[in-house]
């Protein structure tokens, strides 16, 4: 499964952001704003991570008609995602001469 994921710079940034507070779901807009990643890059990236089982997502629990806006979708790391992301980020930080994403 892990080999299916291409750990590009933006992917690592997203994983790093999500692993900081693994229980807190973050919306696409939230991630995009925090990391300055465009929607065109972010949504396919999230879909790949979700298809690989690294991320789970769920709808915001509001009534759109009452709130007057559509529901947001929150992404967070699964157990598998936390394990794999921790490993990937650790390998990246220990590898000599490799760029570390802040």
């Amino acid at each position, binding site marked *: 499964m892990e080999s299916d994921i291409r750990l590009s710079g933006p992917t690592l940034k997203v994983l790093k952001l999500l692993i900081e507070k693994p229980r807190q779901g973050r919306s696409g807009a939230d991630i995009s704003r925090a990391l300055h990643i465009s929607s065109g890059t972010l*949504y396919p990236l999230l879909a790949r991570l979700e298809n690989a089982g690294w991320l789970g997502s769920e709808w915001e629990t509001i009534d759109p008609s009452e709130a007057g806006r559509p529901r947001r979708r929150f992404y967070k790391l699964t157990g598998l995602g936390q394990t794999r992301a921790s490993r990937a980020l650790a390998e990246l930080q220990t590898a000599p001469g490799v760029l570390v994403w802040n």
Partner: protein
Amino acid sequence: MELIVSLFAAIGAFLGTVAAHFVAHDAYSNCPRYARRLIERAARRLPPFERARYEEEWLADLEEREGVFAKFKHAFDCLLCARTLSSLSRGRVPAYIEFSIPDVAKVRLDFVAGIVALKQVEDIFVGCDPSSPAPRGVHSHRLIVELQKKLQERYGELTPYRPGQLDRLTDLLEKMVQQPNGRRPLEIRLILNNGNASSWDQASFRCP
């Protein structure tokens, strides 16, 4: 003569400025609407079982963007990434169940969400017609067995369950209850993709 030309030029410049202001104001006030249209168009490029999810998600994202440029950029990005998302979805098991009440409304759910929904629907629909010879639970049980068999033959695995989809079914059921002529039949269709976006197998069922 020069005075008249200058006067007309000044009036023309003034009117041009006013017109440009109106156009800019119009574009600014209509920006969210145009951006929403772009997102709806982007969602239509996705496979049917992904459209509702991404349309709602992207529209919610649009609400959070501030400024005309940011909104349009998000909308265009969605339009551009729809093709990539569409190709990613092709690798997943594309199957869903459509519940519909003829001439009222319909809702599509991922397969697993559909199975969960069927269990809820059973209490409402199956056995509600006293003239039906089928005892309570037979219709949905047979349906579930048949659906699972078809899916296992073809794919061997199921789409992931997505919480929240059942809300749409609840809306549908509420619409049905509000019908003046009482309950109507619920049609259930299993829709399987053959791996080609334009090729779908369909099987229909009808609950009393």
